[in-house]
């Protein structure tokens, strides 16, 4: 059984890495068509950098990820703190509302947001589909994830620490700033890291909330793939794979050090 289980593990790992290996390898392949290896080249990367819009798409993607993560981390952390600390009416309704973005299919959320933005636009003239609407959409699912991650960290907190601070005369803010926040910071950072990656990874919500001029890298990849597979997309994908891998490993190292 042990040996069989090991074989299974290796096979599944091979299955997980095969597509990534194929993309990375082909991004350095001279042949434009097909998958036969005809020699090493950097030319697809060079062409990619000469593509006049690619920097704009990358910038859009990063703006959305950074801004939405900042907003969602603050809102989500506060939400988790309030849920942990207070009892109030509608508390279970609020918890339900937090679970909804996590569990409903993302296409449902995407079309509902599209409908909402169109409705706001008709009635007020605000909110043309743009980077702003993408950010609003991303924050909506990120808030839920951040709140849930921070809440699980709070659940492991020893209430005696906060009580001790209060007994020693610390006010609500001082207790939060010098006792609670340092204790839950790893959870907050983990939540932010998750929110950031979810934003970079998201395609569906972005697809429904983007407008002309707010193309992100995933949207660009989608529209290119619809037209056909090209080595430039292999190169772009390889860069993104490298960036997320390095980012993930760095993030883990940082979180572990704390």
């Amino acid at each position, binding site marked *: 059984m042990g040996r069989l289980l090991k074989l299974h593990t290796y096979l599944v790992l091979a299955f997980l890495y095969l597509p990534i290996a194929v993309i990375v390898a082909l991004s350095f392949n001279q042949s434009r068509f097909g998958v036969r290896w005809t020699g090493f080249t950097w030319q697809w990367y060079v062409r990619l950098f000469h593509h006049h819009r690619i920097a704009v798409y990358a910038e859009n993607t990063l703006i959305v990820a950074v801004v939405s993560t900042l907003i969602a981390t603050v809102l989500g952390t506060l939400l988790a703190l309030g849920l942990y600390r207070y009892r109030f009416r509608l508390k279970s309704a609020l918890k339900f509302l937090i679970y909804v*973005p996590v569990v409903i299919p993302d296409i449902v959320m995407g*079309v509902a947001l599209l409908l909402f933005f169109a409705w706001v636009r008709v009635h007020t003239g605000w909110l043309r589909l743009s980077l702003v609407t993408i950010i609003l959409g991303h924050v*909506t699912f990120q808030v839920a994830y951040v709140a849930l991650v921070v809440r699980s960290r709070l659940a492991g907190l020893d209430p005696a620490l906060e009580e001790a601070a209060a007994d020693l005369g610390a006010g609500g803010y001082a207790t939060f700033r010098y006792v609670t926040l340092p204790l839950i910071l790893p959870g907050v950072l983990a939540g932010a890291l998750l929110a950031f990656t979810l934003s970079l*990874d998201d*395609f569906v919500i972005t697809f429904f909330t983007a407008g002309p001029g707010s193309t992100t890298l995933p949207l660009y990849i989608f529209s290119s793939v619809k037209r056909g597979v090209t080595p430039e997309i292999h190169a772009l994908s390889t860069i993104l794979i490298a960036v997320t891998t390095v980012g*993930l490993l760095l993030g883990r190292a940082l979180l572990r050090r704390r």
Partner: protein
Amino acid sequence: MNRSATSPARRLFELLLTVGPGALWLVVFMLVPALLMLEASFLQRGPYGRLVGPYTVANYLRFFGFTPEGYDPLYLAILWRSAVFAVGVTVITLLLGYPLAFAIATSRRKEALLLLVVLPFWTNFLIRIYAWIVIFQRHGVVNALLGAFGLEPLHLYPSWFAVYVATVYTYLPFLVLPVYTAVERIDWTLLEAAQDLGAGRIRGFLHAVLPQTLPGIVAGVLLVFIPALGTFVISDLLGAGRVVLIGNVIQQQFGVVRDWAFGSAAAYVLMALVLLGLWGYARVAGEEGLDRLV
């Protein structure tokens, strides 16, 4: 807690400061859009794709097959097909993921193995789908390998097979992680007890190990089943028009067809199915069960 000594006004202020902004955000960008979509599902498609009254249940009737031209269960068939697809994907994912989670949790190098499983999942979703096109297309990796052995090329893209493979690939980590957590918490003395009482390997596993991992299995199954049921990108890219799921119907109604009323009704049917499943799950697993989904 001595915080109860603070004044009610102070408490209300703190409550609004912490829960307020996030709750407001979710109400405005989650609850209001959901209610708007509910209203839209009872409206009709007007000129230029605008939503117009009067209120009607025609969209739902049409979804369930009752059209002015007679009974035509087109969309019910698509919904059924999507459900069968999601079940199929979930079963395959379980067969691949359960032993894998077990192997990781009982390995000496579990940290490294876990990272290896999660890493591909952090690469962009679209790139992972795209890679399977490169593998399955007419002159792709599989057919190049077959050709090297002198075999006939296979028609793999676009196909249901490709959609299945890519969906399993995409959601495998969602199943592995909760099952892994459950395996880590197993109380192995139960297995020893079962073996002391004469249970063989299979019976020992079925009665002493499997039940302990059930919470992880159920959470993982939901985490795979729900997105598989709602997917439209994977079927769009790897099925290229030959594979139509409920997600594709919704996307088309909000895209090229521009019948937002009918699209809203279809989205509500999908959401109702998902919420029904979650409600059943929450009744069995309780609120902590919902936490396991994150």
